[in-house]
């Protein structure tokens, strides 16, 4: 495994205001290295999604620091954070978030379109990304013409087309049956085999744990346990 692609140190994050203010993260530290697939597990309200948002540069921590591919996010303006996210992070969402009136090809292309890349090679790259997830034959299909598993694979293709080093996946198998869930995780595991790419998966699904190199358990905004897969808890 190589250097961390995403690294959080002592991250504290408050959400809400006034009486509704809650501390969602209470000093979380973790790193996602290139060449590894890490799973983040925890009950609802434990802070998984907040942590994913902070690691994905969508929320800024109140305390602590986040580094993406060596770039510190502290003090960056929203547009700079957006650029950092665009160039270094790919997202896979639980409910796919595909654009229903764009074809699979266009949905994948969109990740490069927002970078301002309108060259013809974008088409080839989108085809390659769809081939990587086994959907070369579905380039012209619209999301509603695809099964749930296929939609999630299109979302993965969108996440990887930009050759970003970090893939952050939020419950990618939650809406899938075991066969499709297995297929999706196989793809993510393949991505994580590349030394330059790390995959962080937030999940509740115990069926997919065997794909992880490491499992991080979070509860009440704190990391309570880190397990190397097949090993014993490394930290409490």
């Amino acid at each position, binding site marked *: 495994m190589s250097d961390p692609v995403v690294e959080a140190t002592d991250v504290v994050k408050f959400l809400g205001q006034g009486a509704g203010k809650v501390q969602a993260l209470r000093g979380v530290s973790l790193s996602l290295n290139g060449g590894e697939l890490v799973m983040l597990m925890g009950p609802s309200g434990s802070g998984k*999604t907040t942590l*994913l*948002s902070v690691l*994905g540069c*969508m*929320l800024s921590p109140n305390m602590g620091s986040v580094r993406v591919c060596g770039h510190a996010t502290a003090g960056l303006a929203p*547009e700079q954070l*957006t*650029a950092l*996210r*665009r*160039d270094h*992070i*790919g*997202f896979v*969402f*639980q*409910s796919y*978030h595909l*654009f229903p*009136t*764009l074809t699979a090809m*266009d949905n994948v*292309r*969109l*990740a490069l*379109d*927002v*970078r301002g890349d*309108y*060259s*013809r090679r*974008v*088409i080839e790259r989108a085809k390659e990304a769809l081939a990587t997830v086994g959907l070369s034959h579905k380039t012209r299909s619209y999301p509603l013409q695809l099964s749930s598993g296929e939609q999630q694979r299109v979302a993965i293709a*969108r996440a990887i087309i930009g050759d970003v080093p970090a893939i952050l996946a*939020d419950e990618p198998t939650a809406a899938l049956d075991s066969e499709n869930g297995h297929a999706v995780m196989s793809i993510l595991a393949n991505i994580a085999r590349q030394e330059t790419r790390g995959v962080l998966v937030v999940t509740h699904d115990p069926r997919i744990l065997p794909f992880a190199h490491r499992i991080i358990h979070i509860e009440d905004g704190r990391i309570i346990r880190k397990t190397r897969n097949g090993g014993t808890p490394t930290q409490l």
Partner: protein
Amino acid sequence: MTRVEFISVSRQGLRGGLRRLSEFTARTFIYLWRVAAFAVSLLTGRKITPLFFKLAARNLFHDRLRLAATITGIVFSMVLVTVQMGLFVSFRTMVTTMIDHAPADLWIMPLGTKCFEDPALLDERERFRALSVPGVAEAVPVLVSFAQWHIPSGGTTPVLLIGSDRNELGLQPWNIVGGDLHNLSIPDAVAVDRSYFERLGTSGLGDTVEIGDLKAKIHLVTQGIRSFTTTPFVFTPLDRARNYAGISGKKATYLLVRLQGGADAESVRTHLNQTLAKAEALAPDAFRSRSRSFWLFGTGAGAALFAGALLGMIVGIVIVAQTLYASTKEFSNEFATLRAIGSSSRYVYTVIIIQALMSAAIGFGVAAVIGKVIVKATADSALPVLIPAGLMISLFLLTVAMCVVSAIAAIVHIMRTDPAVVFTQ
């Protein structure tokens, strides 16, 4: 602050302003250059069409009912603005139509004359004073006066007499569709416009009527010489006009001046103003400007037209803003996804603004067709709506500006949307 300090600060401000202006101009050129280069790349196939066009079109056409409401709003607004501005142009043209058709180098008029229809009178002595000024070749009297036209079926209606002798410099009728200009030399001959036949209770050429208590016979018919005051113009030779109006034979409303070859109009005008006793000389442009100023702004008519146009624009902005906002709100998840996958603010603005521009193009297209129909329908009316090409282009730019301004609320909404919502929806 001393005067020197003030000038110094002003110069600094001026330099800063010029620098900003030059930077803005340079940036605009660079941007336009990039847009042009990109368009060429698209046309030559080196680039592919950006997806923001597809996204914008989809957002716009997704809900046909809302699209219809948007387009109706734009069309309603732009037709209202078009009619108001078309009337303004028409009004502006009509108030100077007589000045435009008089072949005078200078106009001499009673002091304080506000517009062509002002019925104040000059004494003949002013004509002799004018002729004594070096550079003046000719000064031809023209009478403009109200008179009562007796409708053959009963009753009277006011008309505006234009009394001018047939002369190279006179104010003669144009757009003649019946009779001949020579016919005006026939005793009792008058010329009227076809659009006023019904109002004057006449069927046209050959009809005999009464103006004041004197006989008049229609020997000439014109088309399109209309007065915005709706009072019909009646052309007739000068002396006959004086008779109809009951005005002394030595009076006139204007003197149309022709200059000698090589004479400087401005210096002659200055000299005339020094020489004339109770009259003043104006260049045609200055007289046009004075007439327009009086009718459009002195009477409040122009302000009313502008107020109508402004109201139309406000209605348009509100409707388009509301529908764009609703559309953007409906697609806020997708915009949040765009933000989450790293689209810049500019990309998101572009989607919304293209949506606004598409609405503008469709709405303007429909409004332009309706505008053309209105132009045709009012062509023969007392106050036709005129939409010259310049006005059409201005209205298109106005529609675009209106739709872009309308997009602000939608843009603000999207920029306030937290991209992290994609994890919770």
